[in-house]
Every structure is written in C-alpha cells, then in structure tokens.
C-alpha cells in the first residue's frame, strides 16, 4: 500500500499543477486574445472608415478637377472649330461656291490656304476639311481626302447643328476625334460643315495627368453606346478594352446618366476599387476617377501590423503575468497537497508550514495542521489502546504483574499518577492494588499515604462515589482547597505535595459489574488539565484493563482448579492402582486359597465315605455327598468368576480365525456332554474372521455347551451353527431346539449369576453367558437372543470392527 501511495504522489501533483496553472494561464491568454482581437477589429474598421473618407474626398476632388479640365478642353476645341467655321473669308468662299460664283478648283485652292492657315494656328489639328451639307468633302488640307463622304458620320450630323467634339477614335498609335462645326453663309444659311481631325492626345494626357491618387489612380471617360459602356480613351490597365457591359462598370453607368457620387465597386479588371463619378457635362459623357482599394488601404496594413504586434505583446504579457500569478496561488496549494500526500503515507508528523500566512491559505493550512494533529493524536491513542490490549493480554498469567503494568501504561498514556483500586473480596474496601508515577518521590509518597488511609466503598470520597455509581468523574481544574474539601484528611499531604491540577476517575467495569476504579491525576505544572478526550481514552483503557484483570483472575482460579484437579487425578489414580492391585492379589488369592478349603471339604468328605462307609447310615452318606457336590459347584463358580474377571484385564488379540475349524474343535471337546444322546449339530457357512481365537473359542464353547444342556430333554437335539450377513456385517448364529426361555427375562439373560432355570433342572453357575457377552463386547460386537419357552433358543452375535475374514466352510457333524 505504502509504495503505491508514493508512486501516486508525483502524478497527483502534476495534475494539480496542470489544472490550476494551465487553466488560469489559458484563461488569461484567451481573454487578452479576444479583447485584443476585438480591439484590432474595432480600430481597423475605424481606421478604414477614416481612410475611406479621406480617399473619397480626394477622389471627389480629383473627379471635379478632371471634369473641369475636360469641360474646359472640350469647350476650347469647340471654340477653335467655331473660329475656323466663322472665318469670313471661308464663309465667303462657301457662299460663293454655293452660289456658283467661284469655280471648284479656285474654291479648293483658296479654301485650302485658309484651312492650312487655320491648321497652323492650332497645333493639335491634324487636318481640316469642309464637307458640303450632304457630307461630301469639298475641300481639305489634305487633298486626298476630298470627295470622302461623312454623310453618315454622327459627328458630321451633329456638326451640322453646332460645334461638336466627337468621340475619340483610334488611328494607329494615336487617338483622334472629329471636331465639327457648321459654316453659315453670309446671310446666315447653313452651307457646309468644317471637319477637323483633332489629335486628342492632350485630352488623354489631361486625364492621365497627376491626380495625386497614387499609382493605381486612373481617370476614365466613357459614354453609353448601344447599352454598353464605351470608353472614349483606353483604360490604363487594358488599352484594348473599349466596350464594357453596364453591369461591370456601375460607376460609369451612373455617370453617363448624369449622376455624381462615390462608389466602391469592382472595376473592369474585377479589382476592388474606390471610385468617384461625374457626368462630364458634355453630351452623355461620364467621368470616373478610381483608385485600387488595395492601394487606398495600403496604409491600413501597416497600422494593422502594429496593432497585431501590440496584441501579441499584450497576450504574452498577460500570459506571463497570469502564469506568475497562478504560480503564486498554486504553490501553497501544491505544498499543501504534497504535505497531505506525505501524511497519507503515514508520516503524521508532517505539517504544512504555511500556518503563519495571514491569507486564506493560512486558514487552510492551520485547519489542515489541526486535522493532521487530531489524526496523529487519535492514531497514537488507537495504537496505545491496541498495544495496551496486547500488553495486558500477555500478562494474563501474571496477575500482580498485570496490575502493575496497567497502572504503568495508563500513567504513561494519560499521565501523571495512576492508582488502581479494586474492591475487596468482602465488598467493603477499595484497595489500592497498583500505583505508578514516573516521579519516584511522588510514587513513594502516594504509596505511603494510600497505605495510611484505606478507603471504604461506603465512604464519601470521590473514589467511593465513582465506584458506587459506576460513572466516570472528570475534574479539569482542581483547586487544592476544593480538593481538600472532597477528600479525606489523610490525603491532604499527598494533595499538597503533588498539587494535582486535574483529576480523572474511571470505573473498571466488566459486563455491567464494577470491580474497581482507575484514578488519575496530573500534577506537573506545564501539563494541561484533563479533557473529554482523555476521559474517552481512559475509559477505553479502563475497559480493556478491567476485562484483562477479570480474565487474569479467572485464569488464576483456573490454574488453582487445574492444579487441584491434577493433584486429585494423581491421588485417584494411585487409589485406583492400589485398588486394582488389591483386586489382583484378591483374585490371585481366590485362585489359590479359595479352592484349597473346597478341596479339603470335598477330599475329606470323600475320605469319610471311603474309609468309614460301613459305619455311616445312608442318610449321613447322602449328606456327605451333598457337601461334596456343593464344594465342587463352588469350585466351578470360582473358576467361572476368575475367567470372567480375567476377561476385563486381558487384551484382545485379534488374528484371522478359521471359524469352522474352531467350532468343530469345540464340538469335539464337548463330545463328553452328548454321549448317549441323539444330537445333530450342523455347522454351515462360517467365514474366516478377525478375532481372539482363545476368546472366540470360549464363546462357542459356552453357547454350544448351553445348547447341549438345554436340549437334554429332546429326543433328538438339533443344533445349528451358521452365519448370515445383516447390513454387510457378518452375524453368527447358534440355534437349538431346546427348552428355550421366556423373552420377558431377556434383560437378565447376560447378567452374572443370573439363571433362568432352576439349578436342579439345569446345572451351571450363571456366569457362562455373562462371559460370552463380555468377550463379544471386548471385540466391539453385539449379542442378542430370540427364544420362546419350549421352542428353542437362537443366539446371534457379531464381532464388530474389522471382523471380516473371507471364505466359508460347510460342515456337518453328527
């Protein structure tokens, strides 16, 4: 268990650390990241709004500026063409030509001069032509173009009405526009149209000129043609692109419809842009000034980087700070956990070491220390109790030693002086039987005082009261004066001497009976008074002590009784042995001495008859004969009694016996008893058995002799010896057809000297069947009989134990 605890410890600490330290750090990091992120988003959207406002303003300005420039340019060109058309000389020539006053060649020569002049006055004029009202070029600076027809050209058509700048057209590398204006005759009627091919590069330059909008800044001019945006000048990023669907250029669409405003669409490239749009204010031309959003917001990305950097710094600082802070919190917790683990491994002396802190950890640490101390104290007491029980139990055989040890232990554990009082046998006195104090002086003094002042159960002392009531008494603080009041005067010197500060008395109780008290007192000045815990502890000790004391007493009594018993057993054995020896010598004497007088009686009676027969009357001779008969009968009786007595002493010597052979031998020996009689003896089924052969022989001899005796009156005696098996046990049967007996006397059948027939009918001592029964019992077997008067008798017996032999014989003897 211990090793598992210690291996668990580091893992537990790690878990604690990860859970508290990491959690707090992660939390703080999360909070800073979220708030920082929100801050970044807020600041960015704010910055973006600011930037956009500024860009929009700049775009509006640029758009207005370009619009003005463009209008100015267009107006200028219109004026220039107007000037050409309004030249008097030219008008005259046209008028003349219309009137036919001038020849075609002359007209062309004179007009070409005027036109060349005009071309020279305007450097952007590539060529100047004059078309008749039907659109046919009638004269031009470039002779080759005469005869060309512009009748269908929209610029020409417009030019018939007023000065018009047409949409620029691509001509090789350059863009040119047709600049047209009507020429009126002298009387004001419409005669021709001036058509100037204008190099619009200046206009393109004008649009592409510095807008102050950065590199992606671009100005586009377009018009609506056939529901499609048509760019008048090529886009910077896509020079080939001229026609764009309306949907892809919403700003221009709005502009050509004469609206002004700001828009953030995607441009013809699909790039996000910021745009300002205006109508040019000429025909349906629109103007769009745009700037790539990327460029517009370029400044924002730096701002964003700075903010992100700041955010990272904040998060790092937050995490570091929170880690440090968490460490500050978890360190004491870890310390507590570590100390708790140490205590858990069984080291109860460990303390947190944080009790000095004034914060919550201090509270926790103090509570923890207190708990550990409590556990330690309880454990110490539990150990002390266990040890005491053990120590007490060991002393059970030494009563005096036990009392001393109890006093010593209790004084040691609860302190300082311990006196054990036990009630005297007569129940009058409380006798101090053991005393202990580690201060030998105090102990000697206490002993002297106790000896001088015996306590009666009936006294009014605290000890007596505690004993009588069987309730403990706790006096936490004792003033010597009050103690004196409650104590016999003889105690006063002791009280003064030891100056008891606190008293504790606990009854010694076993099974509801109080056998004495434990009296404790503290006199050391530095020791605290007894408290409820001491009372509880002392009570627990007293319980064990009382039980052990009673046990020791019982043991003592048991020992005494045992010794007494042993002594008595030895005595009785000796007596029995003596009696046995006496009996032995008695039966020995009987064997030797009892027969001698009988022999003398028999012998001398015989001698009288032999030697003095002639002198004796017949009656005297008959009497002497009776004396001899009785003497002989007594001899048989003695023989049988001796046999019977010997059976109890003699050991049974079991060995395999061929029962059939044995029975045949017995029958042969009894030959004498059946002389002159018709006797049929059948010997059937007799297995080999385990028995004492001499004793078994005696059994069969007695049973068969009885059978012969009680069949004497039968004409033909039939005796059967056989065996049968009852419940797996062989049973031997001796059956005759003799006179039998009344079963109501069955109880007397096997008794010594018990006879069921009169002596004059059937001789015998009445011991034979008693001998048979004793032999059977010595073998552990049973014997019983079945009979009826005049109907024969059957004796059954078993040989008990392991009497089975094996094999059987069938025989018949007549």
């Amino acid at each position, binding site marked *: 268990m211990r090793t598992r605890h210690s291996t668990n410890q580091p893992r537990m600490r790690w878990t604690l650390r990860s859970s508290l330290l990491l959690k707090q750090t992660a939390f703080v990091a999360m909070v800073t990241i979220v708030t920082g992120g929100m801050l970044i988003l807020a600041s960015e959207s704010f910055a973006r709004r600011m930037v956009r406002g500024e860009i929009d303003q700049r775009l509006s300005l640029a758009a207005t500026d370009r619009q003005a420039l463009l209008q100015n340019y267009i107006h200028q060109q219109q004026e220039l063409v107007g000037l050409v058309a309004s030249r008097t000389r030219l008008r005259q020539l046209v008028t003349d030509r219309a009137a036919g006053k001038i020849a075609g060649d002359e007209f062309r020569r004179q007009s070409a001069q005027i036109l060349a002049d005009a071309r020279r006055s305007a450097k952007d004029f590539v060529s100047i032509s004059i078309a008749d009202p039907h659109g046919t070029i009638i004269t031009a600076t470039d002779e080759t173009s005469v005869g060309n027809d512009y009748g269908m050209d929209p610029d020409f058509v417009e030019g018939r009405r007023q000065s018009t700048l047409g949409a620029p057209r691509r001509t090789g590398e350059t863009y040119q526009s047709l600049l047209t204006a009507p020429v009126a005759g002298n009387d004001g009627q419409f005669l021709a149209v001036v058509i100037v091919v204008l190099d619009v590069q200046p206009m393109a330059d004008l649009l592409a000129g510095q807008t102050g909008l950065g590199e992606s800044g671009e100005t586009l001019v377009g018009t609506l043609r056939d529901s499609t945006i048509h760019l008048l000048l090529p886009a910077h990023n896509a020079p080939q692109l001229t026609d764009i669907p309306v949907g892809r250029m919403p700003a221009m669409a709005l502009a050509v419809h004469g609206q002004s405003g700001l828009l953030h669409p995607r441009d013809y490239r699909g790039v996000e842009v910021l745009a300002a749009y205006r109508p040019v204010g000429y025909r349906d031309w629109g103007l769009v000034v745009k700037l790539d959003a990327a460029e517009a917001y370029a400044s924002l990305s730096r701002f964003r980087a700075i903010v992100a950097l700041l955010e990272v710094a904040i998060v790092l600082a937050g995490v570091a700070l929170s880690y440090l802070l968490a460490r500050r919190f978890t360190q004491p917790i870890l310390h507590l956990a570590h100390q708790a683990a140490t205590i858990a491994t069984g080291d109860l002396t460990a303390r947190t070491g944080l009790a000095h802190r004034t914060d919550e950890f201090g509270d926790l640490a103090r509570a923890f220390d207190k708990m550990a101390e409590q556990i330690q104290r309880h454990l110490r007491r539990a150990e002390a109790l266990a040890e005491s029980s053990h120590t007490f139990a060991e002393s059970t055989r030494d009563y005096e030693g036990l009392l001393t040890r109890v006093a010593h232990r209790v004084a040691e554990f609860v302190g300082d002086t311990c006196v054990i009082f036990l009630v005297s046998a007569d129940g009058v006195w409380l006798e101090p039987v053991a005393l202990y104090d580690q201060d030998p002086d105090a102990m000697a003094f206490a002993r002297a005082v106790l000896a001088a002042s015996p306590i009666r159960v009936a006294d009014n002392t605290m000890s007596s009261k505690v004993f009588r009531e069987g309730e403990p008494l706790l006096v936490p603080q004792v003033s010597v004066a009050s103690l004196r009041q409650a104590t016999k005067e003889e105690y006063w010197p002791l009280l003064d001497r030891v100056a008891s500060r606190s008293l504790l008395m606990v009854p010694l109780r076993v099974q509801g009976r109080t056998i004495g008290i434990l009296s404790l007192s503290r006199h050391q000045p530095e020791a605290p008074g007894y408290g409820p815990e001491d009372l509880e502890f002392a009570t627990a000790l007293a319980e064990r002590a009382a039980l052990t004391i009673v046990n020791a007493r019982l043991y003592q009594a048991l020992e005494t009784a045992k010794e007494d018993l042993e002594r008595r057993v030895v005595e009785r054995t000796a007596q029995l042995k003596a009696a046995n020896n006496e009996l032995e010598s008695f039966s020995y004497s009987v*064997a030797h001495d009892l027969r*001698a007088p009988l022999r003398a009686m028999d012998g001398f009676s*015989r001698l009288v008859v032999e030697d003095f027969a002639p002198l004796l009357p017949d009656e005297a001779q008959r009497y002497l004969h009776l004396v001899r008969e009785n003497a002989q009968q007594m001899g048989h009786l003695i023989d049988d009694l001796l046999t019977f007595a010997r059976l109890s002493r003699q050991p049974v010597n079991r060995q395999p016996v061929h029962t059939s052979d044995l029975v045949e031998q017995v029958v042969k020996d009894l030959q004498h008893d059946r002389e002159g009689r018709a006797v049929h003896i059948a010997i059937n089924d007799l297995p080999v058995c385990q028995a004492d052969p001499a004793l078994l022989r005696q059994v069969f001899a007695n049973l068969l002799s009885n059978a012969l005796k009680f069949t004497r009156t039968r004409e033909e005696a039939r005796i059967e010896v056989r065996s049968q098996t009852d419940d797996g046990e062989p049973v031997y049967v001796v059956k005759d057809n003799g006179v039998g007996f009344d079963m109501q006397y069955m109880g007397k059948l096997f008794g010594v000297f018990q006879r069921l027939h009169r002596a004059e009918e059937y001789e015998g001592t009445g011991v034979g069947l008693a001998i048979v029964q004793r032999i059977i019992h010595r073998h552990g077997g049973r014997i019983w009989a079945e009979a009826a008067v005049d109907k024969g008798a059957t004796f059954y017996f078993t040989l008990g134990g392991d009497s089975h032999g094996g094999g059987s014989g069938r025989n018949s003897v007549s």
Partner: protein
Amino acid sequence: MAGDPVEILLVEDNPSDAELTLRALRKNNVTNRIHLVRDGAEALEFIFGKGAYNGRSLREGPRVILLDLKLPKVDGLEVLRQIKSDAQARNVPVVVLTSSKEERDVVESYRLGVNSYIVKPVDFTQFTEAVRQLGLYWTLLNQPPAL
C-alpha cells in the same frame, strides 16, 4: 536326617492339601519316601543343605520336587527360580502342583524351567487321579539323571 534318600520333596503349606496329596500318593503305591516342607524357605534349606538341613547333600534326594506356588516366606516361583539357577539342583525335576489356573503363573513357571504344571482340582477323585498320574510319571517314565 540321614537315612534312605528322599524320593519326593513335597512343598505344601496347606496341611489339608498335604495330607490329601500324601494319601493320594500312598494309595497309588507311589512311594513312602516323601519329605514334606511347609514353606519356601524350608524347601530351599532342604535342597541346598542349609539352615536346619545344614550339611545335607543333593545326593540324598529328592528325585522330584512337588512344589506349591503360594507359600509362606519364599513363594513357589522364587523357589523354582533358585532351583533352576543352580547348576546341580536344576537337574531335579520340579512339578508345580497348585490351585492356581492363573495364566501368568503357568507362563512364569514354564519360563523358569518347570518340568510339569499340574492344577489341583477341587474334585478329590480328579485330584487323586492327577496325583496318580504324577506318581507314574516319575516312577515309570522318568529315569532320574545320574547325580
């Protein structure tokens, strides 16, 4: 005590038994040279020529010893033991003639080297018969060894 050599030493403390035995022996014409001692100590003195029989030699008999077991002073088994322990006396046949049928007596007697063991029956007829056979035993069947 000198005279004819004693042929039978009868060791018997019971006077009745002694008389009956003597009569039985006589009746059966066994011998008249019977010496009777009344206890074991006297028997030993007689056999070993000590005490009252000081100077007596075994050459003067007996030819056979009839020994009761239950005897005053020294009992029959002890007498038997001493006889059978002596190089010369051991050759004299000893017949235990006793009332005891106790097996231990029989076993101990044979262990000590008794020549015969006869139980005195209560029935005088049987007793006489036993003594008669005993007389025949030593006179007819038992040639005494050369001493």
